């Protein structure tokens, strides 16, 4: 990789200052995406600002109906935390399905969410549970956060401190792993938020995580002719768009039947 200088930020202000200092500075959390990109010389940075030392960075805490997960919480810690399992099985199981054990030991919620890889798992839970993304400046609702492929509502000097989730009545995640990368070729997160409100979030199949209105209207049922339709279903050497769209239908049904078995 190209040369850069590394510093470990002790505070959000320090990290922010470094970000604003230069266009070519980047935040480093788990590094599971950033470091491979640097190794392949796909990007060049002047400064890497490690934010894994920020206070409260890895906190996971349930308070009543809310779950707070610090931006630096690893996938492993989220998937193993007993309070998270009780809070939302879908969230806990999803975290346990990301990548492989080594990736889960380093990758973080904040890193995944800020990157918004169209095939990442977390955005489905974040959108599916309508989490709130808290930065040092403001709070952003999930519905307003994911804008497009690798694109979010974050400003260039904005740092995610953590996410706040509200407890659903029930939730589940079903995923079909990409044979090579282990990312989601498609992933569907189903959550019953309240008696009459369902949310269904789809990742992997299109250019950005999105909600599926028709499935949400089905309110936890699987209508026979429910079909996922979207303008930008991905098509590549691994799978045509027809297959990915079909997977979404199948995974929705799987997630719903997972609800029944919890």
């Amino acid at each position, binding site marked *: *990789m*190209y*040369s*850069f*200088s*590394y510093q*470990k930020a002790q505070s959000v202000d320090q990290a922010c200052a470094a970000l604003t200092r230069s266009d070519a500075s980047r935040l*480093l959390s788990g*590094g*599971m995406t950033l*470091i*491979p990109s*640097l*190794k*392949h010389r796909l990007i060049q940075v002047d400064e*890497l600002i*490690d934010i*894994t030392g920020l206070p409260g960075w890895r906190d996971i805490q349930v308070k009543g109906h809310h779950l707070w997960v610090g931006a630096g919480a690893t996938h*492993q810690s989220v998937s*193993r935390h007993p309070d998270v399992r009780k809070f939302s099985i879908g969230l806990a199981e999803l975290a346990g399905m990301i*990548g*492989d*054990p*080594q*990736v889960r*030991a*380093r990758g973080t919620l904040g890193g995944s969410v800020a990157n918004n890889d169209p095939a990442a798992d977390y955005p489905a839970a974040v959108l599916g549970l309508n989490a709130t993304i808290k930065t040092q400046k403001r709070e952003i609702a999930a519905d307003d956060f994911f804008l497009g492929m690798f694109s979010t509502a974050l400003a260039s000097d904005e740092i995610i401190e953590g996410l706040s989730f509200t407890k659903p009545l029930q939730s589940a995640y079903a995923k079909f792993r990409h044979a090579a*990368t*282990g990312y989601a070729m498609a992933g569907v997160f189903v959550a019953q938020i309240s008696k009459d409100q369902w949310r269904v979030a789809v990742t992997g199949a299109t250019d950005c995580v999105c909600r599926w209105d028709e499935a949400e209207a089905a309110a936890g049922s699987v209508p026979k002719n429910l079909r996922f339709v979207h303008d930008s279903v991905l098509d590549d050497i691994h799978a045509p768009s027809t297959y990915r769209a079909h997977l979404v239908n199948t995974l929705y049904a799987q997630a719903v039947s997972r609800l029944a078995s919890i």
Partner: protein
Amino acid sequence: MSQISLNINGTTQKLEVEDRALLADVLRDKLKLTGTHVGCDTSQCGCCTLLMNGDTVKSCTVLAVQANGAQITTIEGLASGANLHPIQVAFSNCHALQCGFCTPGMIMATAGLLANNPQPTDAQIHEGLAGNLCRCTGYINIVESVKQAASAMQEKQA
């Protein structure tokens, strides 16, 4: 350049490293601990797996500076003196290695798996080794050896 301190296999080492240096390369080139192998450049083969603060991580995807202050166990540090670790013994007994290139990473991944789940099912073993590639053995004997190691380690506990 940065000054870092790493506790490697029980010994603290103070090093000066380039900020862009990977943990795997520092271990191999500066500390001559060549048991940790580099098999790919997309963080998928797992040959570089070691334990960092008790977790299995891919050392090719960790900057040495990120590991500052960490406790690291490499394959060279798994045995206690002349006594091989039960995982090492099981791998040999079950013929779970052929060329041996993936083996250190595979053994370390197993160590992490069994530390967290001492009696894994076959499916949990497959998941636990999902980050490690082997081209020689077909994994069948590796899975067997994980089970054998798990039993041996349970017996030791009892």
